Structure formats: structure tokens, C-alpha cells
């Protein structure tokens, strides 16, 4: 019995040490990516190419999801607000929910699933098929040439995707409440305009999406670069990217919200 307890404690200790070591390794890798970003800035074409793969190709899922999330928000908001005769405030509800929270968070979750997993799988497969080793043998640093452009493309794409998600969501809410249900169009837009503050709502939402962009892409490139060069290794790394990114997005959202909206009534 005591031997089993010792073994269990050893196991937990080993896991904790391993997790801390991995966190340190990931942090060092993140700093390395930042230090080797010069190539990405000098040859912005490399980033532009990745912007297409991570940003443009994520558009369809962002646009469709944003539209439906906005439609559902509009529908639910209208159902509740009309009981109090405040259905004209539905525009405010939809806009604030999207700009402050759902836009950055849901867009980041979708981005992690669509682009984050693709980045990890691509870098992981490049490693498994010795493409990264071949690049190193050609005296080209794979972190500068492969990892950094993907990282910056993700960081740049994320705020735009979050903004597009929010815009589509507002449009979805407008479609359901104004066009289909018949809420007054003037009060829908005017209440929204007066309630949404640029500094507290739009700017904070933008800052959140920047943080999420850095977090998701940093996790994605690290997991890909660190993936064991086997089929199982790449598949495990892809799963870890989605799971870790999602948890980090939600955790970061709470922390950022606590700081941003402290004392705002």
C-alpha cells in the first residue's frame, strides 16, 4: 500500500515537473519566434501568403457562424425584451454581446479549430517529412522561414476575423428582429449607436481579439514544431492545439474582462 502511494505521488510529481518544463520550453520558443521575426517583416510576402491560408480561408466559417449567432441573439433577445415592452433595445443587446464578448471569443474558438489546427498539422507534417530538417541543411532557419510568418499571419488575421464576426452578427440580429419580426429599424440602430461606446466596447473587443490571436497562433506553431514526427504525434499535437487554445481563450477572456470592465456600470 505505501509503495502504491509513493508511486502515485511520484507520478503526480513527474507530471507537474514535466508540465512546468514544457511551459518553460514553450515560452522560450515563443521568444525565439519573436526574435526571428525579422525575415517576416523584411519579406512581407511570406506573411501575405499565410494570411490567405489562415485569414481568408477562415472567412466562410466566421461569416456563417457570425450570422447565425447574431440571428439567435436577436431572436432570444426579442423574446425576453418584448415581455417588458423594450424590444427596441434588442439592437443594443445584440451589439454589446457581440462586440464585447461573443465576437472575439467565438471567432477565436473557431479560428483555433480552423486555422490553429491547420497550422499545427502543416508544421508537424513538414517536420515528419523532414522538410524542416532539409531547410536547416540548406542553411535556412525554419523558425524564421516557416514558423514566424505563420505566427504573424495568425496575429494579424484574428482581430479582422473577430470584427467581421461581430459585423455579421449585428447583421443577423437586424435580419431577424427588423426584417422578419418587424422591430422599428430607427430605434434598433439609434439605440445601438448610443449604447455602444468606442473606447469601452469596440476597442476592448479589439484588444481581446489581439490577445487571442497571439495565444492561439503561438500555441499552434509551438505544438506543430514540437510534434513527434509520426502520424500519432501530429494528430495528438493538432488535438492539443484546439483543446489548449480553447481553454486559454476562455481563461484569458475572464482575466481581460475583469481588467477592462472593472468599475464600468
Amino acid at each position, binding site marked *: 500500500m505505501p509503495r502504491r502511494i509513493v508511486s502515485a505521488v511520484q507520478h503526480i510529481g513527474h507530471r507537474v515537473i514535466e508540465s512546468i518544463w514544457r511551459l518553460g520550453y514553450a515560452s522560450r520558443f515563443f521568444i525565439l519566434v519573436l526574435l526571428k521575426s525579422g525575415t517576416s517583416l523584411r519579406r512581407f510576402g511570406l506573411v501575405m501568403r499565410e494570411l490567405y491560408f489562415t485569414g481568408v480561408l477562415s472567412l466562410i466559417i466566421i461569416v456563417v457562424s457570425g450570422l447565425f449567432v447574431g440571428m439567435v441573439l436577436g431572436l432570444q433577445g426579442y423574446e425576453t425584451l418584448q415581455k417588458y415592452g423594450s424590444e427596441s433595445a434588442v439592437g443594443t443587446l445584440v451589439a454589446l454581446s457581440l462586440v464585447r464578448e461573443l465576437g472575439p471569443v467565438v471567432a477565436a474558438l473557431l479560428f483555433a479549430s480552423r486555422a490553429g489546427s491547420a497550422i499545427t498539422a502543416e508544421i508537424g507534417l513538414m517536420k515528419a517529412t*523532414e522538410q524542416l530538417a*532539409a*531547410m536547416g541543411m*540548406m542553411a*535556412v532557419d525554419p523558425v524564421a522561414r516557416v514558423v514566424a510568418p505563420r505566427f504573424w499571419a495568425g496575429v494579424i488575421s484574428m482581430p479582422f476575423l473577430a470584427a467581421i464576426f461581430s459585423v455579421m452578427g449585428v447583421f443577423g440580429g437586424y435580419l431577424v428582429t427588423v426584417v422578419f419580426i418587424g422591430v422599428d429599424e430607427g430605434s434598433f440602430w439609434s439605440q445601438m449607436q448610443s449604447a455602444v461606446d468606442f473606447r469601452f466596447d469596440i476597442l476592448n473587443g479589439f484588444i481581446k481579439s489581439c490577445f487571442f490571436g497571439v495565444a492561439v497562433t503561438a500555441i499552434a506553431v509551438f505544438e506543430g514544431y514540437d510534434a513527434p514526427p509520426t502520424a500519432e504525434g501530429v494528430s495528438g499535437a493538432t488535438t492539443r492545439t484546439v483543446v489548449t487554445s480553447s481553454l486559454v481563450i476562455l481563461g484569458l477572456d475572464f482575466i481581460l474582462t475583469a481588467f477592462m470592465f472593472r468599475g464600468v456600470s
Partner: protein
Amino acid sequence: MPPEVLIEVNDLSFSYDTRPILKGIDMSMRRGQVVAIMGGSGSGKTTLLRLISGAIQPTSGHVKFAGEVVHELNRDALFRLRRKMGMLFQFGALFTDLSVFDNVAFQMREHTNLPESMIRDLVLMKLHAVGLRGAHQLMPNALSGGMARRVALARSIALDPMLIMYDEPFTGLDPISLSVIGNLIRRLTDALGMTSIVVTHDVQESLKIVDYVYFIADGVIAAQGTPKEVRESVAPFVHQFVHGEEDGPVPFHYPAQTYQEDLKLEDTFA
């Protein structure tokens, strides 16, 4: 005067953790030579290539390439040195997001300021040398295994290196592709005046094209010589390897307790 020595390997040892892989290897390779490194799977052949290219550090000893001790160089100096080296990976390791043309042009674009018109001519010349000028627009996924390796060969000679290392270049090829790759290695080495190191299992194909052979077994050089000496060798390991014999110094059976003990025959007949 004998040709200049390009690579000197002196008393080179390497261990993974505490497990020794290479133990006191000595080698010397001259310009213009095609040298084969042979040995069973896991004998440390690929590790030796990685040591020569500076991808890993030796436990002791050193590798000198063109007069420079590879593992003593800092990262920038190592990358400068690697511009004089090429490597052909086992399955080509072509960049799958780039076309054949862009794969071969990769190093030229990364390391030179040549105008695009000159890069185009150079790439087509390199592809012509491996017989694939007509395939320059294809993507790597449209190539057969042999074609992919020929493109990788064209890519590795893009900057006219002094040395090319080939990691199992014959694996998984049909007889025609195998012969083509073998002849290309010899022809390009002679035409460009470089040195080639071929890590391979394929005894018959490599003995046709190489100038010198090293056999590695248990982390040491078990035998070495010219292809003629190797073919005529009576050393048990070399004889077994060259003639593909099932049993010999490399046993057929993995070490185990006796067959009778495993089948518990003594109990049955007791």
C-alpha cells in the same frame, strides 16, 4: 599529387544519453570521391551524416570539413558552411507547398540576389541535369518516388556544393529509378567536382558507382576498402553483408533463451 582531403573524421564518438552509437570512427574523404557508408539498420550511419553536417554534437573527436572543425562553429558560421553542403533525404523531403521549379529555386532565392531570369535559367539547367526539365511546373504530390528524389537531387546541387550527402537514396525505388539515381550520383559528382557520401543498404547498386566503402557495425568501422576489395573480402561480416547471407556475424535470431526452454520441452519430456 593526391586530390585534396575535404572531410576528415578523427576518433569520432557519439552517444544518445548513455547508449554509445559511434565509437572512435576515423575516416577521410577526398574531393571528387563517391564514398559509401554501409551497415545494418541502427548501426549509426545516418547519425554519422548528422555529425558531419553539424546537426548534432559529437561526444568526443571531431569532423573537419574544408579545414573547419564543424562542431566548433557558431550558428552563423555553421549556416555559412552548410551552403557548401547538400543533403538528399531518404524520401526527398521536397517542400510540398512549392512546385518543382520553386523547390529547386529555393536556395537561390534565399541565399543569392540573382535576378529571376537568371534563376529561371539555372533551375532549368539543374532540372535538365536530372532529366526533369519538363516537370518543372508539377507539384511534388504529382511525382513518383524516383522523380521526387531526382528533383531533390537537383535542389541539393542548386548552389554547386562541395559535398552532397545521400541518406538511403535507393530505398523503395524500382530497378530503373534505382539505376538512374545511381548513375546521376556518379555523373554529377564527376561533373561538379564535388564529394558524395552515400549512406545505403543497397550493396550491388552502390558498389557500381562508389570509389570507397566503409562498413559500420556496432559503432565502429568493421571494414573498408575499394569496391573490388570489398567484393573479394573474406572477412565474415563483409562477406555476409555483400552477399546478403541470412546468418553470420549478424545473427538471424534475436538473442533469447534456448528454444527448448521457451517451448518448455524439458518439462514435457521430464
